[in-house]
């Protein structure tokens, strides 16, 4: 009996592996399990190979396991391209349709067993049925899900061909019972029931934005942020907000700034190429002190990079990409569910500090669908202070907090011009050294004085070894720590800007070794830590570029190896 089973469903485009994967995850969730599904696909618009990677577990998880227990392929066309993303082991089972030939050697090199199942032939015996549903039933049966849950998931997902689909899944399910290999993959009983959601990181970020009061969104499509915008479009309409599709990202960020200047909390979402285009205008948000939020769903870069795959390499541009000295907020969610809270927080910080905020999500979170415990929400304490006080109004008044009273168009007596030019307290353009210094001090002060509370980082565990990380590396690190079993501290930074050196110093008290884990080539996070924080003792960097996610075992090996030396 297993506490976690990982299954990949692969096939060429149109084979329905994503549909089947989503149903598998939903069936598992309905049966009371946790889990998540990540996806990979080829570059083709249609007809490209794809794989749905589903992990089902008795515990909440935010990352994939070391290797896949099951690889079920509808066909093998180009599936070998995913070999590095679908690690198998000697105990893994490969299921393929003999009608499509033998599995590529790369999948059997690990010693995985191969069982041919005539998926197509089985489906052909049921009018209107497709092999993907046979594969769904087969995998569900192999991991011990009740068929009732599969049927319920199918009924929720399928608009047409439901009866044939369920019959095909049933046929696959029956096939599973006859497979000897079944013993190895059956899950333990699910944990006790709790209220759970099935949500993607992109949906979560969108929902967090609406919770925080965002009512204007400017949208320019870009993989892998598009689903966030597509989720927001009908959702905004329901809650009385507006979404405008922009002609490019230069327009979308400026639309958001314009709407926010008008008093409406505003957001846009993009990925690296779009963030690059928005950078100049984010500086306008800094200088003119206009709240705005950009969710950057990171993909591999530079340039177009690998559009469909994840990497944590926009850290540098998010922190330091703006010209001039431009203090702003950068927040990184560290789980799929945290995309809600982190985005909500980022909007609150932007609004209350009158500053742009960047949310560093990534493709891994954005397009992962996870079973999460229903979040317990706290009241959003960060709001924009608006003024209607017109007497000698100074939009950019020097205040102890650095935050100045913001008038919203429509308020009489306090009209002003929001300006990207340096200005004096009234907002009048000024090239005086004194005004520049005073306004720079003010803009820096409002961030420096921020008390972020507990939310600046997720800190778990005790011990003289600390793993410091952020974003989607956090899940694998957490799992590695559980397996390591000894005392280790996890420090996952959520507030990346403004920096919190004193807080990290305290969190690292007594630590002798620091392992920094990040998913990029040059060690951007390590360099950020080196620049602004003190790291005690011996420091080691575990890093590599995307798209391969860290596996818990790699981090565990790193910790073990350190101990041995």
């Amino acid at each position: 009996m297993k506490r976690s089973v990982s299954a990949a469903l692969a096939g060429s485009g149109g084979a329905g592996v994503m549909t089947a994967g989503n149903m598998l995850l939903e069936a598992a969730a309905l049966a009371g399990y946790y889990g998540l599904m990540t996806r990979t696909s080829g570059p083709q618009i249609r007809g490209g190979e794809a794989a749905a990677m589903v992990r089902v577990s008795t515990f909440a998880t935010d990352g994939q396991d070391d290797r896949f227990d099951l690889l079920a392929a509808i066909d093998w066309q180009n599936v070998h391209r995913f070999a590095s993303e679908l690690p198998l082991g000697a105990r893994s089972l490969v299921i393929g349709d003999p009608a499509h030939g033998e599995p590529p050697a790369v999948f059997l090199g690990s010693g995985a067993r191969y069982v041919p199942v005539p998926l197509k032939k089985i489906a052909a015996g049921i009018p209107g049925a497709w092999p993907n549903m046979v594969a769904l039933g087969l995998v569900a049966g192999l991991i011990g899900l009740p068929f009732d849950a599969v049927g319920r998931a199918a009924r929720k997902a399928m608009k047409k061909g439901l009866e044939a689909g369920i019959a095909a899944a049933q046929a696959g399910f029956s096939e599973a019972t006859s497979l000897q290999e079944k013993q190895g993959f059956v899950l333990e009983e699910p944990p006790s029931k709790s209220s759970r959601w099935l949500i993607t990181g992109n949906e979560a970020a969108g929902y967090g934005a609406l919770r925080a009061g965002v009512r204007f969104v400017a949208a320019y499509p870009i993989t892998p942020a598009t689903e966030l915008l597509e989720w927001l479009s009908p959702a905004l309409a329901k809650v009385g907000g507006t979404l405008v599709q922009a002609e490019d990202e230069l327009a979308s960020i400026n639309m958001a700034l314009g709407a926010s200047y008008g008093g409406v909390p505003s957001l846009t979402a993009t990925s690296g190429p779009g963030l690059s285009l928005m950078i100049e205008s984010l500086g306008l948000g800094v200088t003119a002190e206009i709240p705005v939020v950009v969710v950057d769903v990171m993909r591999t870069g530079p340039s177009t990079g690998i559009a469909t795959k994840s990497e944590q390499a926009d850290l540098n541009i998010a922190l330091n990409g703006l010209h001039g000295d431009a203090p702003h907020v950068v927040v990184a969610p560290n789980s799929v569910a945290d995309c809600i809270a982190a985005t909500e927080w980022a909007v609150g910080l932007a609004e209350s500090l009158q500053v742009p905020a960047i949310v560093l999500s990534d493709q891994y979170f954005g397009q992962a669908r996870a079973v999460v415990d229903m979040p317990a929400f706290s009241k959003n304490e960060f709001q924009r202070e608006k003024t209607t006080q017109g007497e000698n109004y100074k939009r950019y008044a020097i205040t102890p907090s650095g935050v100045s009273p913001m008038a919203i168009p429509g308020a009489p007596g306090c009209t002003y011009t929001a300006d990207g030019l340096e200005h004096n307290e009234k907002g009048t353009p000024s090239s005086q050294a004194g005004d520049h210094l005073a306004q720079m001090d003010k803009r820096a002060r409002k961030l420096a004085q921020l008390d972020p509370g507990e939310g600046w980082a997720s800190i778990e565990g005790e011990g003289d070894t600390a793993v410091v990380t952020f974003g989607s590396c956090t899940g694998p690190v957490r799992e590695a720590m559980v397996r390591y079993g000894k005392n280790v501290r996890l420090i996952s930074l959520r507030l990346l800007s403004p920096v919190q050196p004193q807080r990290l110093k305290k969190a690292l008290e007594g630590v002798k070794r620091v392992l920094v884990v990040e998913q990029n080539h040059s060690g951007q996070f390590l360099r950020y830590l080196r620049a602004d924080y003190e790291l005690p003792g011996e420091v080691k960097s575990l890093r590599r570029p995307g798209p391969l996610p860290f596996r818990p075992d790699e981090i565990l090996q790193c910790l073990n190896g350190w101990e041995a030396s």
Partner: protein
Amino acid sequence: MNAPMTAAALAAKDFKSDYKPVWCPGCGDYSVLSAITKALATLGLRPENVAVVSGIGCSSRIPAYTTCYGFHGVHGRALPAATGLKAARPDLTVLVASGDGDGYSIGGNHFLHACRRNVDLTYIVMDNHVYGMTKGQPSPTTEPDWSSKLAPGGTGLREFHPLVIALASGANYIARGFSGDPNGCAALIAEAVRHPGFSFVEILSPCVTFRPEQREWKQAVRPSPVEPTEDPARAARRLMTDDGFNIGVLFKGIRPAFSGAAAQATHAVADLEAGFSL
């Protein structure tokens, strides 16, 4: 457009701030500022209910010279900022000020899509066929043989024709003014504000510093000999023979303005959680 206020009507001077413009003596933009303030007074608006949005350049300094709410943003991006503002705050009257470099070069793409989108904005472009703030480089509307340090002997490129582009892209109101006639410009702007959808007012506004020969524009301009049309094909035919100096309203379209503004909320935010529940 807002309903005119019945309370104490304001005069043009009430819309002019006490900031001293950075413009050169004799700049056409002074007259455009006067025309804008006059139009706002004519419309019976209050400064707090008007926003003037701009990008970068000589003309884009206008927001702070009015007593309205102003937004002096990034080079070329005035139209998107104004689009966001108007979509979020349809109750405001939103004017956008730009120049031929800001509006037709770096911001050219936004011009096309603002015309197409037809948001209820009034777009005033002060065209002097030169980059003035950076001291005399050719802009998209500069004549091909105009010699400058950056393009000695001229660019050799044909001029951009803003009215043709506006018409082809779907602007709902298209007019040309001349800064030497501030009253005429005020009337064009007031009508543009009243007209629903995206209104484009191109104003020939001489740069006496870098293009002193533009002082002769006052001899070249003439009132358009024909009445405005609502037929784009007819307007297009007129533009075929336009030499760039016909002043007046060319086109008044009947396309409904962009209706992307928020509807009344039908759900609480928490209702959306049903979509995530198992």
